[in-house]
């Protein structure tokens, strides 16, 4: 484990800690997928997580909104500790939005209903208000005209943008992205990345697992490199792409660049 300290960009210096992970461990049977992951992510920070396949990137961010339960260490999101406490789980689920590689839109609901689901049933908003919010968000991701279609009728890029709108509809404080562009055709990747860049500029705290190096370079405040369940290296994009300290990082970079 090496340096996991916050990149001290001016932009974030005064911000409070949004996600704090302390020695997070996770086993699948007798296979240890996370080995004492420790990291702190500031409010409004954009962190890109890189690493070879099977290194535990997905597992880590899935632990952060408790799609997987971690088995050791602490995870604190926005001051709330993730534990067996039902109240905290509920709270964190509605504070943390997540976007999946496979979109996971609800195929039996229209786009509009997909987006209004959380405001109505989780945030307990009146329907009219929720629909207004949904339209605003669809506007923001650039597909207001598709509101009454079913997910199956949309292209992959459009589906992923709906998924982002669906997560944003909860008004989360943190957004997690697990390879949001990996299932997309190249021409659709840009439209999704544009939406994510917008979000980042709007000051959303984001944790992104991606293989889009351009995105990482341009948007990330910090890049975390993982391998076999450990954080190997962490630092600003310039540091990471120009003079990484660790051998493993160099190897990884030489393979993908």
């Amino acid at each position: 484990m090496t340096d996991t300290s916050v990149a001290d960009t001016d932009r974030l210096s005064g911000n409070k800690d949004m996600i704090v992970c302390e020695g997070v461990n996770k086993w699948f049977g007798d296979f240890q997928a996370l080995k004492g992951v420790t990291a702190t992510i500031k409010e409004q920070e954009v962190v890109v997580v890189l690493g070879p396949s099977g290194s535990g990137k997905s597992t880590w961010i899935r632990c952060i909104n408790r799609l997987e339960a971690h088995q050791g260490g602490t995870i604190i999101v926005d001051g709330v500790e993730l534990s067996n406490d039902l109240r905290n789980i509920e709270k964190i689920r509605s504070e943390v939005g997540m976007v999946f590689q496979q979109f996971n839109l609800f195929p039996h609901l229209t786009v509009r209903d997909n987006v209004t689901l959380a405001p109505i049933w989780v945030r307990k908003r009146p329907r009219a208000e929720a629909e207004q919010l949904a339209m605003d968000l669809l506007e923001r991701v650039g597909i207001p005209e598709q509101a009454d279609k079913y997910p199956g009728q949309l292209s992959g890029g459009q589906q992923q943008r709906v998924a982002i709108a669906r997560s944003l509809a909860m008004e989360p404080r943190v957004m997690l992205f697990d390879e949001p562009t990996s299932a997309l055709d190249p021409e659709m990747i840009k439209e999704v990345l544009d939406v994510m860049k917008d979000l980042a500029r709007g000051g959303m705290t984001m944790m992104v697992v991606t293989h889009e190096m351009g995105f990482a370079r341009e948007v990330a405040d910090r890049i975390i490199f993982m391998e076999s369940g450990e954080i190997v290296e962490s630092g600003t994009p310039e540091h990471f792409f120009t003079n990484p300290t660790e051998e493993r990082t160099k190897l990884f970079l030489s393979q993908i660049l």
Partner: protein
Amino acid sequence: MTTEGEGTLAGMQPKRVPLYRDATVVKWVTQVIALLLVLGALFFLVEEAGANLKAKSIPNDFDFLGINPGFNISEGIDKDPNTGGRALWVGMVNTLRLAMSGIVFATLLGLAIGIARLSDNWIVNRLASIYIETIRNIPILVQIFIIAVLLGSAGRLVGDTGPINGWFMVSSKGLAVPRIFPSDGFYQWLVVLAIGTLLARAVRKRRVTHQDLTGAISYPNLWFGAVLLLVAVVGWFVHPVFGFLNNLFNEIGDAWGSIPQSGAKLVLAAGAVTASLLWIRRFLNSKRSPAGLAKLTDDDMFRMIFAVIGGLLVAFVVTIGWPGLSSWIINSGQDFWHFLGDKFGDGRTGNPVDAMRPTIVGEGTLLNYGSQGLVMSPGFAAMFIGLTLYTASFVAEIVRGGILAVPKGQSEAAAAIGLNRAQALRHVILPQAVRVSLPPLGNQYLNITKNTSLGIAIGFADVVNVGGTVLNQSGKALPVIAIWMLFFLCCSLTISVVVNWFNVRTRIVER
């Protein structure tokens, strides 16, 4: 029950969560409450039923199993049983007889119709589809009634001619076909056959090796069949040489019978406990990891607890709860060996297998079948025909579905690597079709077994019918119903196990 959050490497203890908010606690408390509600409801129902039964002075015990039932059974291995238990046993045997013949014939007929359904001949195809669409949309009970009526109205003998006179007869007294039965030297001949099989397998193995080594086609299966046939024919005449087994089996039986009862109990109980402990050890081993056992889920704990309880329960039952069990095992083991012993020696030189044609006794309207042939009573015949026809329509659909489920690309691929049509069917299509069809086929076998219970509607002496008579005479409803259900559960379980076994096998064959 908390299995999470323990053993934190970073050394920090998670803060205590109030119990009512702890996910694990809530999860388990909810389940325990649900369990209690279900158990409570059951308890109250049983309590209430017991009280009401007592109020109506309906006894609720199993005494009837041991006393004379006071009725005769129309067909079966014992038409005049001397205890209620024996009567039910006769019914069970009848049920099994019906179920097994139904399964065999429904499979054959269903196979034929399912293939006919895929035929490119219009008439054959149409006939098969009319058959399926008609039969499977009419309740089986109605069909059984119709068949029973039709059989009943076949007053005179029909079909008593044919290739061999008397090979098949129909009348209102039922169906009759020749009876093939094991006779004098059957068991001795079985021993010859067993040896023959070993021999034939050895020969087959050699042929296979030969083929592998030289590449010459050496027909291993043909050789296998030929050797077996040869041994069977020779054995038909020489089987008396195995008469000496008589003594051997009797000796074993005596030895078995002299096992002390307490010893048997101890062995059984120890076996049960060891089995459960071994299971747990294997289970834990499969979960063992460098980080110890802290990661067992609630589910795993639950399984282990049940394994322990199960083992102890069995141990308790065999030692204290049911002392009769061990002596039963000793006695029946002894009986079994002596029974085997009786089948050997003693100047048994006759044919191993014999056959007899049915005969007719009586005249005019009093005509009846003699005891020679294999006579199916009208009830059995109606049930058998009804179940076979009905289930065959489902089997046919399963067969068709199974064959259609094999993608077209498979037969094309088979053709591409140069297999001919028969080889493609044998090595490519059928193995896959069988794999798809087996589970639903197993379900149909289960259905046949359960549908035998309709025998009560037309007076076939199956277990439900016999139980119904017992119930009417003794009024002991709950015990009888419990016996019915237990019996059918055992049948279902057996069939599932067998089907599963085949299932696993075909899956391995496929790989």
